[in-house]
């Protein structure tokens, strides 16, 4: 079992032209992605977009119909799961109910016939790292959701995988715990320097955790980049709406900008289309009593939504959503000036509808 002893952490993952059909349905359509060594990469998309299928193909639980997968330069496309240096944290955690926490974590090492002393050392180190030492002799049914999730994490990490796969690992946790676990996971990954690939449909989770993320839709990767890149410059209306909130404004091209239902809006560069959509995030819209120099819209507040740290305003014409940064309350019915600054307007490249 010599090859298993030489763990290296500097292994990324490359998937090339992966296609997968389930009967007639194309689950993955020519997916290519590169995950750098030590990167926290997220596959983000709505249910049924193929993200879990892609993860299962990387894990070796499903075989691709075409395409190739490499870890650290080694082709693993045809290797079964048990031969891959890739471990998974399953959505339901899939802990063995008849085994204790300790034995669950030791499972992979026992499969590979490590010596008891070595198993003990490694398992205890992981249990300690994930604050599970006091639970070692408990059974999964005696654990809370958060503890189960940490056991699943320890069970995968103890094998020192080249790539750790996480299949919606937070979906079973309540919202408050989830937010904390997301940050913990991020810190853990930085500390370990290991490659993580997370699958989620939760955009907040993707933004918090990832170094880079890929937004998937209908078996394809729509956009790939750092969270900031994708949030600030969404490629099309799907990404704009899926990652954060966005005002989508249909328009036609005009000299120096676009013509919309609210009138002319100047843009920083010309769109490539004649008829299309521009987007602006609710928090990028300026709001005031004076008419701005450019791209001003006179609008009336129709509804306000209190969100704790700010207000969301709905305005006519539009409807437009504006997120205020202050606690200043603007009552419905009031007329205000909105500024849709050219540098904040994103030109979307929607595929022909």
């Amino acid at each position: 079992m010599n090859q298993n002893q030489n763990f290296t952490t500097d292994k990324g993952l490359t998937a090339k032209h992966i296609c997968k059909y389930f009967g007639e349905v194309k689950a993955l359509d020519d997916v290519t992605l590169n995950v750098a060594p030590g990167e926290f990469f997220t596959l983000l998309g709505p249910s049924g977009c193929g993200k879990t299928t892609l993860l299962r193909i990387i894990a070796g639980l499903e075989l691709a119909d075409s395409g190739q997968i490499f870890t650290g330069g080694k082709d693993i496309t045809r290797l079964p799961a048990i031969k891959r240096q890739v471990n998974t944290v399953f959505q339901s955690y899939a802990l063995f109910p008849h085994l204790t926490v300790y034995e669950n974590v030791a499972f992979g090492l026992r499969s590979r016939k490590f010596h008891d002393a070595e198993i003990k050392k490694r398992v205890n180190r992981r249990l300690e790292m994930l604050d599970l030492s006091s639970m070692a002799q408990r059974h999964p049914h005696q654990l809370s959701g958060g503890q189960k999730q940490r056991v699943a994490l320890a069970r995968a990490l103890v094998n020192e995988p080249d790539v750790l796969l996480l299949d919606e690992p937070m979906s079973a946790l309540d919202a408050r715990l989830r937010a904390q676990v997301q940050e913990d996971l991020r810190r853990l990954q930085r500390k370990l320097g290991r490659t993580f690939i997370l699958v989620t449909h939760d955009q907040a989770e993707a933004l918090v955790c990832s170094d880079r993320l890929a937004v998937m839709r209908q078996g394809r990767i729509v956009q790939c980049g750092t969270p900031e890149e994708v949030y600030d410059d969404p490629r099309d209306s799907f990404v704009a709406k899926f990652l954060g909130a966005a005002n989508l404004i249909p328009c036609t091209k005009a000299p120096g900008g676009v013509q919309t239902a609210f009138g002319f809006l100047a843009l920083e560069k010309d769109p490539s289309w004649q008829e299309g959509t521009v987007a602006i995030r609710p928090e990028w819209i300026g709001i005031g009593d004076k008419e701005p120099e450019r791209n001003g819209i006179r609008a009336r507040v129709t509804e306000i939504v209190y969100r704790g740290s700010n207000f969301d305003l709905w305005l006519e014409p539009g409807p437009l959503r504006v997120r205020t940064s202050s606690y200043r309350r603007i009552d419905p019915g009031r007329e205000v000036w909105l500024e849709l600054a050219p540098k904040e307007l994103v030109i979307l490249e929607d595929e022909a509808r």
Partner: protein
Amino acid sequence: MITWYGELTTRKRLLKRGSLLLLPGMLWLMLFLVLPGLVLVVVSVITRGAYGQLEWVFTLENYKRLAGFTLFGWTPDYLMILWRSVVVAFVTTLVSVILSYPLCFFIAARPERSRYMWLTLVIIPFWTNMVIRAYAWFLILAPEMPFARLAAVLGFIPDGAPLYPNAFAVYLGMVSMFLPFVTLPLYASVERLDWSLVEAAQDLYASRIRVLTQAILPQTMPGLSVGIILTFVPAMGMFVVPDLLGGAKYMLVGNLIQQQFGTSRDWPFGAAISMGLMVLTMIGLQIYRRKGKEIEVV
């Protein structure tokens, strides 16, 4: 009818109500299990009269006889029959379990509609009388049939001989009789199997054997337990199949008991053997419970 609306449900009341509901079942068990059991215990320690009547003379002679002490010294005959019954029941159960696993996975993997057809095929033998099924094996194992021919060609039996009566025919009959008792409860467990545990095991480098013992067996344990008990206990006392397919040489404890209560008219001895069978069955179940606990799903 008593209505409980608005009444405070105390532990005492619950107990009272509970015992009322228990009463019919308890009466049934008293009448048809405990009472006959006690009769059996009593009969097993009295004496058989010259004409097979019961004589109220206390004796442990029946148990001594079962243990092999006769007028002419010690023989292991009866103990051998008991032991053979344990072995036959054990092997029957084991073979039924080994055959049931692939069968259950096969059925569970069928599309929903054809699953019921397959399950029905498993159940159909239930609807046929046990004796008739045993006779059906006579036909299948007859000298003219391909199985006997093949065995003759291979030199296992003389030419023109049937494949019965022998141990093989007994096992064949026993397994075919008890297979559904294992398959049905096991299927219920296999159908609900959480495959993510199997995938997790594979993800954690488990060999096929490890996947079976760590991911599949513990999950199917509830169904398997029911199947094992439903097979082992009645198999211990089976007498129709060994009688017909095993011949006189392959006597099991079931046949022996039947003989004592029937042709031999020796009820006290029959009762003693029954007690022996009961004790053996209890021991078997106890061993199973101990062993089973080690791998039981918690």
